[in-house]
């Protein structure tokens, strides 16, 4: 059995208490440990992704107990790529937090950051639904701390909303898990997939309820309209680097939907027929529209970016809810793009904040380092709005191509293209007010010399932007790989047989047992 697959969970879980207990008063040691940990995570994640790139399934049985009875971690192409994406994003976010000094404006930033990573990694790797709930809680608990990092009244109020909304989501998750367990007697995803097909058509009431509840829970995480209300204020009020890290958290919801609704409740399953096309697709289209209209309507830059995240999640969900291999492949390509672009924009809005009293979209005197910040904002906005030449454009093309010929094709094309236009106008308005109109305002005489953001901050944002460029340049290879990922998701038999079929301890009764 390969033990590396549990390393992305165990490593942050060990580093975080070390940071709290041993390095509490030494920000330098905390930074060094945190960065080293994230670098190691990238190495481990890259190794895991390489190992499963041939289509094999990595299985880790905790305590060597066989699958339906013990908890398993499973690595396939999808989960390892998500782990790698998280680790890479974490590195740049961490560099920005160090460069901008955010990590020193409150206590325990690095410890919470590591716990957050542990939760996200675990959620991507686990093969058990209850374990998924536990890792959701781990990442949420850490995110509550990160969200209100450095305090402030507005942030605390947004934090209350964020915590309460997610607590409701967790309760709903437990209701869903209870109904699933009552109906099938298992919570292991692979075992569940086998058992759901065995339910007689007239006994499916409970499992239908469970499937809808579970979809609602994941839709809350993915901020699909009408369950998106927690996102704008909490992402806008969270510290810049934290909001950038949260860009991956909405993707955890999208990942869970892809995983559960291709494997456990696949689209051709009669029990849940209509759930994807009838409910999820229209909801996704509405979130795309609402997000982009929000971009145009926002009065503050951080809210604008938060709404653009809702919009891009809507785009991801539109592509997912097609539930075709092409749709999932396009969605996976767009998930990578949207994570990087969203994170970069949150960091840029924090750069803008460095030189201004607030982030409201009104003309104020030019900020320090305005040229570089404006250039980065320009690139980030192009990526998020989906203009050529960056990966947002390619991602949208892939989504449109995947939607070609589907039932709601006219709606999808109209809303995707229309919302892109609105998004471009919104970002253009924000950029011209923030950066161009600023030159017409005379800086006040008694203004203190404004502090420029540190070079490390620019390195972090520049790193994310260059990753976006790489995502565009290597789009062919990336899309080929996401296509094989989607192929693996739609042929889950190797996954199921690996998880359920691998014997563990006491699988074959020995004489002493009897």
């Amino acid at each position, binding site marked *: 059995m390969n033990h590396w697959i549990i390393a992305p969970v165990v490593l942050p879980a060990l580093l975080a208490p070390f940071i709290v207990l041993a390095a509490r008063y030494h920000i330098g040691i905390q930074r060094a440990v945190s960065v080293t940990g994230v670098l190691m995570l990238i190495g481990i994640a890259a190794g895991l992704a390489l190992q499963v790139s041939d289509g094999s399934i990595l299985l880790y049985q905790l305590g060597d107990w066989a699958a339906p009875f013990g908890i398993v971690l499973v690595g396939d192409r999808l989960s390892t790529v998500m782990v790698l994406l998280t680790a890479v994003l974490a590195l740049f976010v961490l560099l920005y937090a160090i460069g901008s000094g955010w990590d020193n404006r409150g206590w325990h930033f690095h410890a919470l950051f590591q716990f957050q990573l542990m939760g996200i990694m675990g959620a991507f790797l686990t093969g058990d639904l*209850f374990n998924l709930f536990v890792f959701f*809680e781990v990442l949420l608990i850490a995110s509550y701390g990160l969200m*209100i990092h450095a305090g402030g*009244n507005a942030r605390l109020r947004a*934090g209350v909303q964020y*915590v*309460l909304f997610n607590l409701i989501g967790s309760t709903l998750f437990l209701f869903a898990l209870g109904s699933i*367990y009552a109906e099938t007697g298992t919570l292991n995803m692979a075992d569940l997939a086998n058992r759901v097909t065995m339910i007689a058509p007239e006994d499916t009431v409970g499992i239908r309820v469970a499937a809808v509840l579970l979809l609602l829970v994941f839709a809350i995480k993915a901020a699909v309209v009408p369950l998106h209300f927690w996102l704008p*204020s909490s992402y806008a009020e969270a510290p810049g680097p934290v909001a950038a890290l949260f860009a991956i958290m909405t993707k955890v919801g999208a990942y869970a939907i892809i995983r559960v609704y291709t494997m456990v409740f696949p689209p051709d399953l009669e029990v849940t027929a209509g759930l994807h096309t009838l409910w999820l697709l229209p909801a996704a289209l509405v979130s795309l529209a609402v997000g982009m209209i929000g971009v145009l309507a926002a009065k503050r830059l951080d809210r604008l970016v938060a709404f653009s995240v809702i919009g891009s999640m809507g785009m991801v969900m539109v592509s997912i809810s097609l539930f075709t291999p092409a749709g999932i492949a396009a969605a996976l390509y767009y998930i990578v793009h949207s994570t990087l672009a969203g994170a970069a924009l949150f960091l840029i809005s924090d750069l803008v904040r460095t030189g201004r009293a607030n982030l409201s979209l009104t003309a104020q005197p030019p900020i320090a380092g305005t040229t570089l910040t404006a250039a980065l904002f320009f690139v980030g906005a192009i990526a998020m709005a989906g203009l050529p030449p960056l990966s947002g454009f390619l991602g949208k093309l892939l989504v449109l191509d995947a939607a070609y010929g589907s039932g709601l094709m006219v709606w999808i094309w109209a809303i995707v293209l229309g919302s892109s236009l609105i998004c471009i106008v919104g970002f253009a308005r924000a950029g011209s007010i923030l950066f161009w109109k600023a030159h017409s305002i005379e800086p006040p005489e008694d203004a203190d010399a404004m502090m420029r953001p540190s070079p490390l901050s620019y390195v972090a944002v520049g790193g994310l932007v260059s990753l976006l460029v790489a995502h565009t340049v290597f789009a062919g290879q990336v899309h080929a790989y996401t296509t094989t990922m989607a192929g693996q998701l739609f042929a889950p038999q190797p996954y199921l047989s690996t998880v359920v079929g691998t014997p563990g301890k006491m699988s074959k009764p020995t004489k002493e047992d009897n």
Partner: protein
Amino acid sequence: MEFLVASAVGVMTAGGLYLMLRLRTFPVILGMSLLTYAVNVFLFASGRLTVGAPPILSDGVTVYTDPLPQALVLTAIVISFGMTAVVVMIGLGAFLGSDDDHVDDPSEEEDETVQGPS
């Protein structure tokens, strides 16, 4: 017994949902706790209700109760307990800071005053 448990879950969920829809933190947190009680009982009942049966193998016993929901409920109780404590602390901090315990977004005029430097 099934009726009792089911109606208990139902009543607690209804009460919890009603309180959750209030505007101020205190009733919302109370509603949250009611809802977690409801979900704990619901999880417990998901392994079917049996009275006086052991959860682990014993000699001379033929009827068992499902041990897994008990383990699940234990996890759920611990998490919801901790979470309630966290939300009480954050809610208290927000109330003491801005002298206002509404859970919705502050209105536009109020927004300017609440927006302190971070």
